[in-house]
């Protein structure tokens, strides 16, 4: 039992940190620009594929730097030539633009790289078990992911505190021309923010690629849960996203680790009952409902605390 708890905690933290790496960029974009970027997970995927390709050409470490920059550049182009013109038509238009973009990116990726998983490997320098708990190995690579996530978190926090970028963007949401009159180049700031957000997604892709699958459907798998993370944590709150990522990582991991069901708690139902929703509910294990939990959490949070865990505003 102790073993399972320790290992699940570690796994939960690791998964949570991956979620954070992904959602940090989305938080930055969503909270600052109000854009529900449905293509965020696609940028993550691009990061993974760029990372894979560059790793083959120039090695992992240069790829780690270059791929996020490339993705960031793609993001900036998207902002400059797409979102900027759409902004005035409201958030739904922006959202649909990114929706369409997500489709296009998925197809382009599968056009270029095919639909099968890539053989994207962990760099040799990190391919060893960092430590062993209860005979379970913890690969150095996962620790590396953890370190990167925390570094990003701290760096972003500092950057947001130190610079006025956040204020500028937020102000520009309501009165863009006034921000311009105060001497700020709103267009460039927006492009930068979107670029940084995308680059963060790209970074998550480069890093997660070797550890999970690098495949043309990888965006779809993680997409929706990111929204859970940032809404749950509170829009606009980076620490909120951090905590929410951790929490969701832990909850999902522990839910899987648990074996309980109502049946195991109260004994099986009368077998004569036949299949019914009651028997379904009775027999379902906590592990089976693990994938639902984040959404349950999301709905509850929004009902009882619409600004999210650490958020300060509702929308």
């Amino acid at each position: 039992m102790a073993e399972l708890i320790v290992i699940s905690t570690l796994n939960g933290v690791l998964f949570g940190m991956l979620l954070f790496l992904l959602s940090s960029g989305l938080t930055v974009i969503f909270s600052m620009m109000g854009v529900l970027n449905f293509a965020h997970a696609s940028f993550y995927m691009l990061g993974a594929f760029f990372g894979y390709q560059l790793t083959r050409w120039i090695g992992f470490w240069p790829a780690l730097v270059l791929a996020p920059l490339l993705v960031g550049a793609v993001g900036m182009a998207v902002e400059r030539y797409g979102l900027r013109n759409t902004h005035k038509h409201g958030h739904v238009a922006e959202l649909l633009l990114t929706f369409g973009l997500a489709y296009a990116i998925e197809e382009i990726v599968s056009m270029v790289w095919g639909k099968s998983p890539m053989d994207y490997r962990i760099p040799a320098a990190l391919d060893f078990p960092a430590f062993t708990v209860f005979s379970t190995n913890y690969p150095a690579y996962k620790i590396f992911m953890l370190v990167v996530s925390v570094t990003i978190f701290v760096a972003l926090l500092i950057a947001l505190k130190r610079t006025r970028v956040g204020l500028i963007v937020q102000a520009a949401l309501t009165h863009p021309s006034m921000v311009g009159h105060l001497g700020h180049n709103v267009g460039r700031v927006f492009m930068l923010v979107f670029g940084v957000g995308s680059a963060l997604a790209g970074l998550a892709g480069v890093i997660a690629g070797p550890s999970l699958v690098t495949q043309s459907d990888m965006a779809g798998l993680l997409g929706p849960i990111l929204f859970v993370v940032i809404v749950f944590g509170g829009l606009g709150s980076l620490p909120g996203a951090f905590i929410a990522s951790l929490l969701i990582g832990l909850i999902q991991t522990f839910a899987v680790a648990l074996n309980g069901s109502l049946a195991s708690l109260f004994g099986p139902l009368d077998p004569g009952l036949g299949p019914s929703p009651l028997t379904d509910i009775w027999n379902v294990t906590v592990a089976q409902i693990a994938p639902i939990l984040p959404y349950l959490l999301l709905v509850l949070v929004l009902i009882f605390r619409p600004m999210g865990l650490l958020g300060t505003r509702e929308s």
Partner: protein
Amino acid sequence: MLEVRNLHAYYGKSHILQGVDLDIAAGEVVSLLGRNGVGRSTTVKAIMGEVPPQGTIRFKGQDIAGLPSYRIARLGLGYVPEHRDIFPSLTVRQNLILGIKDPRRPGKWRLENMLDMFPNLARRADTPAGVLSGGEKQMLTTCRTLLGDPQLMMIDEPTEGLAPLIVQQVGELIATIAKAGVAILLVEQKLSIAMKISNRVYIMGHGRVVFEGTPDQLKSNAAIREEWLEV
């Protein structure tokens, strides 16, 4: 310092400004008067690049017509728009911070001075600016623009919706600013204020300037007042 020649501007197809000429020297307080809808706000907006201008606009000798507004602002032209445009979700302090163009090179106005000068704002420094009363918002926008250290400030209808007493205070504030060496272009309805603090006044009608002179000249020219100002 500011030199506007033959300025035209359109909203869609409607020709609003039909050749406006204006001059403002350094340190001068100039008022732009006129009835509702003659295009005073449009003139200022055209200078700031918010409405596409046609014609010549020179600021400190540099042609600024058609530049993006952030470039114009960085040259030292401050603008307080008609509808105040405070950032409602940001706090008062954050609103002010955004007025500072470059935190590494502070100008002659400091955040602390501003809060000292306006205890009303200081008290509300950490509330979202959206809930300020109308008068407080006006003070906030003016201070915000001042923090950008402009050499020329264009203020559009600063006294709209203000209590009589505050109107006087705003008048005094503008005078203070002017004393600090900032040139001012004031767009006003309230003749009394404009007359009191301006060095010169312009009167607009039908999209162009129809009178230019000192307040005293205007005072003595009842015909002009009647034709272009009164109703």
